[in-house]
């Protein structure tokens, strides 16, 4: 509030609205998009003394400052853990010419001056739940006293508010702790056979684990922040399909569904492989023609919340914005949707119910209605369980048991069991959880629950006995860490991965056939390309002429396709430091300029072919000496 004005971060509509006290609208600005003046999930607003408005742009990991009329004055911040970077800016407060920004996943508040320069920061990550004294645990919002000497910080994970006051700079109040490499198991998880995938939304990364004698070993990770192909802003949920060697990521930040392939051979020695995962394709969910699936017209923008395999080779995606569940095939094409008979409800994660579908009818799915505190079966709408404070995820095991995590009561519950509570918190014990989220079933009927508030995963066996905790060592008690069971993993399915697509035989009748060729991982498109100068030399800017055809018709250009070129060094974990530009040439080829591979070594070069809302990747590997 400032004077007679009230500014509201309209998160769902990606805009800011400013009202007068009589309720009339004074200004509205912002729209969803990557441009400097656009925003993606504004999480908080604050008036500066001069009437300008700060906006915390959550998914873009930045803070913007607009004039009262909505003109962009300043923007600062990039994703990351370093000073001046953000891991989820969620709260703002202004004092004098300074703005304090709650940097949630970095467990701190950063102070910036009017020019957006970092001035100072306070708060460090708590080592244990309930720990206070300036140690923060996922701080969310902030208020400052009028004299700027006290800060009120809310921490929903701990169900508390901390008041921080001034300290004598000569007196060391906080022990100087080394910066913790943050581990944010984001709460989304899925497993298939021995493979487990977990998201870290604010980093953003997806981690791949292989279960080995009851212990998850990290074997891969992927994720680059951004809106371009293969990049992600906020991976809300994941699903893994081992037989197809595919991982699907629901990116609520960019409103896309991303598909990745991964190498996995159960015979191989378990180990981390930086090149294990490849981006395959992306489907844009930002503009879906409603009339194709439901009565009504116009387009809707899907906001992915939960993603799970539907048990029939496809996927289900809960849509927090529309309050319904979409069905997709394995190519990520929407095939239909379930509308809860209750009307639009706020949906979270879900699961497929084993063997509850009628013959011929789609299999029944379960989904949590977060605000309604219940679990619904779809399409029937039957309430399967209710009475939860804030359910986050539901899991139907192969044995037919139903588990629900309830963040509100910090509990994992088995529906219908004599003693439904498997674990309850908040706390760090072996049967305690703090704000649990995602659920999945491991081999042998074990249940993995993401104990989000404790930065760890907890595994219970089919009798619901505690088996193991993994994740941040600081949140695992030595008393039970020693007792973690080692049980041999059941034999993993040994079916070989599906064969990748191959470039078809070309008849050489078209000029582009003379170029090098690559096929998209999904096998739909061929990319022909020719660099200038050829061969490519490290640190030398080169241009690429590229042509796209459908794989089935390599003699005919797919003129509706566009190409984005990108490149990365998977072993180094970095990409290029340039952004190439593509322009369509008269003959139908695409010219890409400004590409530069700035180091010798092993590079992957990506051709991301976009047709309509779908992007598919073809890639080549170059060894530059």
């Amino acid at each position: 509030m400032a004077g007679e004005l009230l500014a509201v971060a309209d998160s769902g509509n990606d805009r800011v609205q400013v009202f007068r006290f009589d309720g009339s609208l004074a200004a509205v600005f912002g729209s969803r998009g990557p441009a400097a003046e656009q925003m993606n999930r504004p999480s908080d607003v604050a008036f500066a003394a001069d009437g300008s408005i700060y906006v915390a742009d959550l998914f873009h990991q930045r803070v913007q400052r607009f004039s009262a009329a909505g003109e962009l004055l300043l923007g600062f911040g990039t994703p990351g853990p370093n000073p001046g970077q953000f891991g989820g800016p969620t709260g703002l407060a202004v004092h004098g010419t300074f703005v304090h920004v709650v940097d949630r996943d970095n467990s701190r508040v950063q102070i910036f001056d009017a020019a957006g320069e970092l001035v100072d920061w306070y708060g460090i990550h708590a080592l244990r739940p309930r720990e206070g004294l300036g140690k923060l645990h996922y701080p969310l919002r902030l208020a400052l006293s009028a004299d700027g000497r006290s800060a009120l910080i809310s921490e929903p994970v701990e169900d508390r508010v901390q008041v921080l006051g001034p300290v004598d700079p000569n007196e060391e109040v906080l022990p100087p702790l080394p910066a913790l490499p943050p581990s944010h198991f984001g709460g989304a998880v899925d497993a298939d056979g021995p493979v487990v995938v977990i998201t870290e939304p604010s980093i953003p990364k997806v981690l791949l684990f292989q279960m080995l004698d009851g212990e998850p070993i990290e074997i891969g990770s992927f994720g680059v922040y951004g809106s371009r192909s293969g990049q992600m802003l906020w991976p809300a949920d994941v699903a893994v399909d081992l037989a197809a060697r595919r991982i699907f990521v629901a990116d609520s930040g960019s409103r896309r569904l991303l598909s990745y392939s991964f190498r996995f051979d159960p015979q191989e020695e378990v180990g981390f492989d930086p090149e294990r995962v490849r981006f395959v394709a992306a489907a844009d969910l930002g503009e879906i023609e409603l009339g194709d699936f439901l009565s009504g017209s116009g387009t809707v923008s899907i906001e992915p919340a939960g993603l799970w395999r539907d048990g029939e080779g496809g996927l289900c995606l809960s849509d927090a914005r529309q309050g319904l569940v979409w069905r997709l095939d394995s190519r990520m094409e929407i095939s239909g949707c379930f509308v809860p008979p209750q009307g639009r409800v706020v949906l979270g994660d879900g699961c497929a119910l084993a063997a509850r579908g009628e013959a011929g009818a789609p299999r029944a799915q379960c989904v949590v209605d977060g605000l309604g505190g219940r679990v619904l079966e779809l399409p029937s709408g039957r309430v399967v369980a209710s009475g939860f404070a804030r359910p986050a995820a539901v899991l139907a095991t192969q044995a037919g048991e139903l588990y629900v995590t309830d963040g509100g009561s910090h509990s994992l519950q088995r529906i219908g069991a004599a003693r439904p509570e498997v674990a309850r918190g908040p706390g760090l014990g072996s049967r305690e959880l703090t704000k649990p989220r995602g659920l999945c079933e491991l081999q042998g009927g074990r249940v993995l629950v993401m104990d989000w508030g404790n930065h760890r995963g907890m595994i219970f066996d089919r009798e619901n006995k505690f088996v193991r905790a993994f994740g941040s060592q600081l949140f695992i008690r030595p008393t039970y860490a020693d007792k973690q069971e080692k049980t041999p993993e059941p034999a993993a399915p040994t079916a070989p991965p599906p064969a990748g697509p191959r470039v078809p035989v070309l008849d050489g009748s078209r000029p582009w056939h003379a170029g090098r060729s690559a096929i998209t991982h999904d096998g739909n498109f061929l990319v022909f390309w020719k660099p200038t100068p050829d061969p490519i030399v490290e640190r030398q800017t080169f241009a690429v002429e590229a042509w796209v055809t459908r794989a089935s018709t390599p003699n005919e250009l797919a003129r509706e396709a566009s190409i984005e070129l990108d490149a990365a060094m998977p072993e180094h974990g970095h990409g290029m430091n340039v952004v190439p530009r593509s322009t369509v040439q008269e003959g139908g080829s695409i010219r890409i300029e400004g590409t530069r591979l700035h180091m010798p070594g092993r590079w992957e070069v990506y051709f991301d072919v976009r047709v309509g809302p779908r992007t598919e990747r073809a890639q080549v590997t170059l060894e530059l000496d």
Partner: protein
Amino acid sequence: MGRLRARLSAAPVAGLACLGPLVLGLAARGGLRESPAPAGREGAAVEVVEFDERERAILARLSPLGAPPADPTNAVADDLAAARLGRRLFFEKRLSGKGEIHCAHCHDPERAFSDGKQLSEGVGKTARNAPGLIGVAWQRWLFWDGRADTLWAQALHPIEHPLEMDGDRVAVARLLERDPELRDLYEGVFGSLPEMDGWPEHARPEEGEGALGRAWRAMTPGEQELANRVFSNVGKAVAAYERRLIGGPSPFDRFVRGLSSPDPKASAGDLALLDPSAQRGLKLFIGKAGCRQCHTGPSFSDGEFHDVQVRPLSGGERTESMRLGAVRKVLGDPFNAAGPYSDAREGAAVEHLTFLAAQSESWGAVRTPGLRNVALTAPYMEQGQFADLAAVLRFYSTREGAAPAGHHQEKVVKPLNLTPEELGDLQSFLLSLTEEPPPEEWRLPPP
């Protein structure tokens, strides 16, 4: 050569007795055979470590140095008169606010144009180690964070920086106007100076209520443009001078020449310039130590930015975003290659800006320094964190004291776990990169 010998021989590292012949060889121009051989190798013929075809191809890209890359953004980059003016300006204390500091204050010709201090001191103590300038013409980006994209634009920053020379562009223009000799030199290169009637005595663009900033804002846009033009010309003249700071062949260069020579007799003298330790070091450098990943090309720099996670001199956590923040600065610099003062607003230099990506992963990344003459420019890193080469090599070998890598940082640098012998070999090799000094005409202050 006397100074060079003294410095090299004084290198405080065990296992470097081999440097004796190296230095004598330089001094005696091939008189190596008469010089004492390393311990245990008395009377041995020239020993050459085997370099296979691939390694030789790599060596061919590291040497010879060749001619410096052209700088079309500076029309007088290779103009002799401009270089002479630049040399005058480089050693001109009146460019600074109080008339006490010139460029050579921190870029001392006696120290290969560096200053030997951890943090350089101009008017005040800066936050950076002054890099040497020999071979600066090869640098693709300037400053440790690369916030200047041309040598001439770089030269302008220290003149006005409050902690460096604390001068101002209008006073610089006034100096050129009033000093007859400088005026002649300037006008001989760039044509007439503009009329400065009505200009303040001192002014520079800066935020806040300081007198210099206020005076600048009181000037008309036309006057500001003219002052900027003169100022950019000053930078171009200084750059024309600095581009001539080029050393002669180093023992390494002559070794590579010898290696590729078809005549073994003629090449023996060249090959002997690198003793076996330095040769083994070279092999490590281009091989398993991985140095070449970043220290590549004839200047031994990829011209890029990497985060090797050296902690700041003050200890504790790093707070400077380095390359990440500099990308924004260079894109917004009116003196960049694409700006109105550039003499080539298209071409390679502009492409560097056009496609430049501001990525969060470049937080903390620092420009890869070239390694030619590295033995002469201790201490090392952007804040002189390491006193000598041995400390630098130890850091890369063990990564001891490195700042923890965040999720976004690249993972180029891993502990090398080198043996003491290997560290010694690498250091021997680095010492062989010391070039013959640039000609006195350019190395010494004007008479």
